[in-house]
């Protein structure tokens, strides 16, 4: 049985994704995500012992580019879709508490 999705969990996921959710949305997503997880429960019934975890859906390996510079966008092009700019920078709401 997969984890159940309750309202609290949906709110937490919303917070992690920096999305504000209304009570109605929390209720709706709990239901929708719940039915997706139920579907995965069905898959869990398969015996996968001895099957290697899949790292990637294709068998393609080792796709590389050479370390040779290509032309980049101009600063104006790069900033064209930004809601706001500050000179040559993207302007965003004040960031606090960074950390990778």
């Amino acid at each position: 049985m997969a984890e159940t999705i309750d309202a609290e969990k949906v709110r937490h996921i919303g917070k992690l994704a920096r999305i504000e959710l209304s009570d109605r949305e929390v209720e709706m997503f709990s239901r929708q995500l719940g039915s997706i997880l139920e579907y995965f429960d069905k898959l869990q019934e398969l015996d996968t012992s001895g099957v290697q975890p899949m790292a990637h859906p294709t068998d393609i390996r080792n796709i590389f580019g050479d370390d040779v510079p290509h032309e980049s966008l101009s600063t104006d092009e790069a900033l064209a879709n930004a809601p706001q700019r500050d000179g040559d920078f993207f302007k965003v709401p004040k960031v606090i508490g960074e950390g990778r």
Partner: protein
Amino acid sequence: MIDTKDSVLPVIGLEIHVELATETKMFCRCRNRFGDQPNTNVCPLCIGMPGSLPVMNRKAVEYAMKVGLALNCTVAEFTKWDRKSYYYPDLPKNYQISQYDLPLCEHGFLDIPLKDGSTKKIRVLRAHLEEDAGKNVHDNPSHTAVDLNRAGVPLLEIVSEPDMHSVEEVMGYARSMHRLVRWLGVSEANMQMGHMRFEPNINLHISSSSRTCKTPIVEVKNLNSFRALERTVAYEIERQYSQWRADPDGYSIDKLGKQNRGYDDDLGRTVFQREKEEAHDYRYFPEPDLAAVTVSQEWRDGISSQIGELPLARRARYMKDYALSFKEADALTLDCPTGEMLDAAVAAGAKARRCANLLLGRGSAIANERRCAIAEIGVTAGQLAELAKMLDDGQINATAAAKVFDELTDSDDSPRAIAEAHCLLAVTDTGQIVAWVDEAVAANPRAVQDVKAGGKKQARAFGFLTGQVMQKSRGAAKPEEVQRLLRQKLGD
């Protein structure tokens, strides 16, 4: 101060982030270059446009393998990429591409030098590739300005085991790693440019008469200088100890687990950092946009063959084969090319001792002035070898050789040609020296008298006369020869 009744063992692990010196970024071919105008090295991929797809930089993988192999790591035959959730605007696609469960390199070690001349093995848990974030600029109080030039620059994260137990060991490890990545040519490791950042994990294992206890593990992020690292570790050891003394029951890893602190450079100490509970909920999952990587034996061997002799091995060889002191050998193995220059000069028939003296004398002084490596001052191995041989054969004396050495930095001429042009060749013509001796004796009757009279003033007067002759020769006569002829003349 630590009470001698308590036995306190600091336990320290270090994560080091190294920016790799590729021409282009890790997943696109925008330039990887520090100091350019903001947002000039950006493309749809690094500014997080929907639909853009990453293409892995082969060179970044090879550089990472090179470091891993030099650190005696196992290079994975199969490795893949993962997404790490990240919600800050300096990496606008909202995840960082990293490696989670299958890192490229694992289980290695780095030998670090200790003060007593011995070495210590520090184990390396893993070294994996990830992308760097851009830069958030906080100059303005009302908003944040974002430059994405650095977003996507290849970063190698090297994680040690908690094998270090003192500030000295941490610094030895950090400096050895710094030397190694520069040596391998995979990073400029310029601290001012943020090419290398440290994240120490520190706690104390304390046994006192009544109990044994472990303090909470403190992680300090983003230290970008050796000084900050040194001060952080020293400060944390003291701070954790006094906090434990004040509250031996409460201040323990069992009760508090892991904590984050920030480093305040102005205060020179770490400060408490409140973090949101969900900050570490990274929710890794496999990166579907990048193909997995398999590393063949052939590929690995090819990289391995590029590594060559490493700093510690070369230093040991110089002490053994060239009879250099630890300090001399260390100074000649700060970077790779300086040693290659020395070895090439020795291979050309020069004596190692002479070459080392030249390199560590004027060579080191000039390199310091120019803030570069000794190998970069513009003297070739061939020039070095010839000058060393001239010294050895007595064709030039040490003072004149230093002058020639200085001239060599801006010249392709041979040391002999320079010495001739500047009249710096040793005068071996005895007749010429005898003539100078005669002149000096005739011009300084008082000194001659003092020498002949013996007693207190004799040595000084003799030195004076020698100096007079040396001056006439413009330093080109051999002092021993001058003294021999002077003694002969004065009937000593």
